[in-house]
């Protein structure tokens, strides 16, 4: 028996942190202090912020609270990793330096506890949402980002507010199916990475999908929302033995 052991890795995503949702932010800070500080690694798999206009926005009090909390975790000796989501893909190296974390590409393949795991945010696998895929192709272009970031911060925030409103409206019109990952995209991801295990977020449909024939597994993270009822949230853990478990907001295994 090798228990007790520090958790090897914890995974969260889709917190959509914003000042208007204080309970969600509090839950995030509690998670960092009570759980993440004791793990060997913390993986933040996208949409941690509801939006991010650029690293020149680092200095707002709310953002500083988040940065300080993350830095405390990395100062405790935890390796903290950050992947872009579809909302906060403009997070850059200045943020990473301030928070003491490492930026990851999407997809990222990690070997954790002898498991090879493919990590993605999940938006790039929603290939039936053609409008979104076109949008994503545009905004992930370095040239587009450079041009966007050259605009004044206030102007960027205005554009983002417009985009968020447009997204809210579009969500009402999109079918349930196209807002999920497609089997083809998942198969392609397994093939491209050589990983039998995928962990992702984005869809807000927490689950473990297991293929009975191939044994391949796809773990989906929940989003976090504590400022309305019922509350949502939770995380995924990989322990020292390589077991992958899903947990609710209280840490109870699902």
């Amino acid at each position, binding site marked *: 028996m*090798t228990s007790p052991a520090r958790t090897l890795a914890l995974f969260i995503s889709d917190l959509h942190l914003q000042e208007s949702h204080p309970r969600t932010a509090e839950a995030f800070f509690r998670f960092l202090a009570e759980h993440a500080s004791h793990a060997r690694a913390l993986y933040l798999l996208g949409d941690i912020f509801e939006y991010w206009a650029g690293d020149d926005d680092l200095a707002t009090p709310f953002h500083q609270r988040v940065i300080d909390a993350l830095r405390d975790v990395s100062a405790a000796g935890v390796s903290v990793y950050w992947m872009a989501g579809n909302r906060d893909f403009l997070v850059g190296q200045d943020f990473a330096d301030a928070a003491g974390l490492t930026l990851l590409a999407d997809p990222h393949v990690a070997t954790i506890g002898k498991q090879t795991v493919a990590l993605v945010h999940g938006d790039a696998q929603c290939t039936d949402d053609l409008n979104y895929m076109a949008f994503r192709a545009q905004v992930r272009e370095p040239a587009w980002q450079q041009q966007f970031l050259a605009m004044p911060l206030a102007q960027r925030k205005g554009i983002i507010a417009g985009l968020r409103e447009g997204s809210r409206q579009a969500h009402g019109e999109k079918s349930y199916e196209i807002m999920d990952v497609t089997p083809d995209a998942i198969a392609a991801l397994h093939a491209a990475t050589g990983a039998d295990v995928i962990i992702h977020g984005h869809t807000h449909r927490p689950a473990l999908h297991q293929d009975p024939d191939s044994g391949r597994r796809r773990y989906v993270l929940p989003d976090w929302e504590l400022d309305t009822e019922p509350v949502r949230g939770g995380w995924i853990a990989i322990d020292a033995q390589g077991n992958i478990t899903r947990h609710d907001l209280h840490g109870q295994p699902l």
Partner: protein
Amino acid sequence: MTTVLMTTNKGNIKIELDDAKAPKTVANFVDYVNKGHFSNTIFHRVIKDFMIQGGGFTPEMSQKPAGTTVENEAKNGLKNDKYTLAMARTMDPHSASAQFFINTKNNDFLNYPGQDGWGYAVFGKVVEGQDVVDQINNVKTSRSGMHSDVPADAVIIEKAEVVQ
């Protein structure tokens, strides 16, 4: 309040057991003590500034059989603070048998409900020989077969006995 004295090759460690807060765990542990189970076992897993774990293996790294298990009593209010004694176990919350560990840091994340909804049951604390625990905390460790974090020079529990 039962007190156990562990005589090790690094010095003596005296442990006060909390019969009131962890009656089953203490009874189980004392049973192993009285059967002489801990004689000639080692601290086989030492992770610096986390915990030192022992009571399961001989100096030759052969596992001593420990058939009796005990219910998880972690929800007793006792914390995995530095120098407290707790039961080691597998993922199965009620699998603790003989292996124990001494916390060498305040390990809050091991307290009920812990990372798995159960936590690790604390049932005693080191009242004398904390310096010996500190010494063991600092020993050099390496791999031994499939075990990692094994002290390079064996830290041996020569015997454990109930004293009063």
